[in-house]
């Protein structure tokens, strides 16, 4: 019984980390219809900035996180203006893949050049590091922080998209850009804002998830598949879907690794195949 509870807890924590690092991509893919393979690259930039801010500038973790998100948005903005904007009108999936892989390669190369090939640490404050006794077992303190961040992010995004004027405009622009434009909604601004949110979330997730997915130049390529898979299984653009898929895949992965570690990867990808085969648009995705 204790073991079951323990595994369930590990699965929840892992699922939440998956959610944190991929929700930005869900926003991008669902609302802007862009299969952004460079999502991991943005997360990685966030991680590097947070690492630089806390190690070299000595800033507090609590300051380093928003700073990382903000700076990553600033870095990504020119990319939106010069490159991503081209993709909004042209929905050819292959062009999107080529461009975003190109961006990923470029960012990896630059990161490797600037920061070197080694892992970069984002030191945790003492209050978030080490084990935490929750009664029946020890849990990494940072996982609790990730749980809180994940819940807060999910709630905030849901409120933003469902309960605000901005959310209505976004959904209008997504459903019918021409009609929205005719109604006086400036879709290019909406897209820009959504892009910034997605990139900010990527950076946020990159920093918070760095305990499990450490920051190094090949981060962007190494975990590219995981992000894409989680978002698709949940249904692109659905916050609740991404949440659910993260939890399910987290559970499949954690349980699988506990029961039969030597077949660990099989559980994760079999679960993906099963989910996608039964729900082609993702768990909570809408038909496009």
């Amino acid at each position, binding site marked *: 019984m204790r*073991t079951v509870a*323990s*595994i369930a807890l*590990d699965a929840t*924590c*892992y699922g939440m*980390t998956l959610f944190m690092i991929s929700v930005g991509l869900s926003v991008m893919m669902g609302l802007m219809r862009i299969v952004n393979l460079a999502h991991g690259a943005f997360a990685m930039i966030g991680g590097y900035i947070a690492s630089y801010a806390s190690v070299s500038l000595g800033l507090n973790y609590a300051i380093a996180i928003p700073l990382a998100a903000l700076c990553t948005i600033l870095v990504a903005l020119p990319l939106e203006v010069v490159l991503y904007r081209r993709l909004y009108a042209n929905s050819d999936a292959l062009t999107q893949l080529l461009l975003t892989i190109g961006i990923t390669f470029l960012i990896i190369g630059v990161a*490797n050049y600037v920061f*070197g*090939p*080694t*892992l970069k*640490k984002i*030191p945790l404050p003492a209050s978030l*590091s*080490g*084990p935490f*006794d929750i009664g029946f*077992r*020890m*849990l*990494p*303190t*940072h996982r609790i922080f990730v749980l809180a961040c994940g819940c807060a992010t999910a709630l905030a995004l849901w409120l933003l998209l469902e309960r605000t004027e901005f959310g209505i405009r976004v959904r209008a622009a997504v459903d019918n850009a021409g009609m929205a434009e005719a109604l006086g909604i400036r879709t290019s601004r909406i897209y820009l804002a959504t892009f910034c949110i997605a990139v900010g979330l990527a950076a946020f997730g990159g920093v918070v998830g760095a*305990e*499990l*997915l*450490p920051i*190094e*130049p*090949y981060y962007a390529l*190494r*975990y590219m598949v995981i992000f894409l898979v989680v978002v698709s299984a949940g249904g692109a653009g659905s916050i609740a879907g991404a949440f659910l898929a993260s939890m399910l895949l987290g559970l499949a*992965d*954690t*349980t699988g*690794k*506990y029961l039969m*570690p*030597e077949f*660990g*990867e099989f559980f994760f990808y079999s679960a993906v195949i099963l989910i996608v085969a039964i729900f082609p648009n993702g768990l909570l995705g809408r038909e496009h």
Partner: protein
Amino acid sequence: MRKFAVSLTAFAACLFAGTAMAADPIRVGIVGTMSGPYALFGQNFKRGIDAWVAQNGNKVGDIPVEFIYRDEEAPNPAKSRALAQELIVKEKVQYLAGFYFTPNALAVAPLLGESKTPLIVMNAATSAIVEKSPYIVRTSFTMWQNTKPAALVAKERGAKKVAIAVSDYGPGLDAEAAFKGTFEAAGGTVVEAIRMPLATTDFSPIMQRIKDSGADTVFTFLPSGPPTLGFVKAFIDNGLKASGVKLMSTGDVVTEPDLPNIGDAGIGILSTYHYAVSHDSPENKAFIDQFVKDGGKFDEIAMTSVAAYDGARLIYKMIEATKGQRDPDAAIAAVKSMSWVSPRGPVSIDPETRHIRQNVYLRELVKVDGKLLNKEIQTFEAQPDWALSKK
């Protein structure tokens, strides 16, 4: 056909050019991971060789030596073979060296006989490589070599029940077999042998499994990089360390470049390895001074630089013995049973296996003057590759 004949003659001419003009440089082709996730180790090849050249000059006698680098990038045997072929045929190298990954080294082995090119393996650690061609010498290590002492230490220090957790790929399976065989032969019990997928990021379920097994000691091997860090952190953060479970590993898990990331929580981890940056000897000091003087960062010294440094020593010896001629048999004969003092300690080339015989050290992760390092606390002298040699 005529073209074929011409290029054949040209090639033959190049072969004999050495006799005519002794001043022609001997070229050495180095294939290593210069870019990609393993770039640190390939760049360490270059730094190690640079350090050797800086200390010993770029000539053997009056024969200049030139090193040419190619990027193997990732495990990709077809690419490595093409690179080696290009180096042999186009760049006319007389020696090949480097190779971080086992499949890449294996792909090159069949070329060596026909082209009469000795190969000095500077990393790829699967035992069988040296058996693929009589022209292969290795200056790195094998999993068996480093793991057997770990099992002996575990036994010595009173471990009764051990859980083994290794990455699920070739070297991991070697480490598991070596530890299990040795530990059980010494009378210990292995209560759990976990094989973890290479792409594992969350090690919590593995830790849970170890906890459930009731082991008092964990032995682990993972390839250096993001997973090692995740494993050590999970070990600490899931409370295993606090509950008194001991962690032992090969040095791959606590490589010096990773130590700052592991942090103070890692203090006390035991590992067995053939080289520690902190190794206290005049040879190592001279080596590291040179490494840093040439622009290398102290925190980025990896074991591949020492393997390359020693490899360069072998190449110089071979060139000297063959007077710059392409004579792989004489070259290999010259280094068989050669012994010297490396930055890692006294070493020799085993004449039977052509693999390096070296001390393996038990190290403990400690903090000295605010810097984490692996401190050598016990020495296992002149260890062979236990998979190939029995004594």
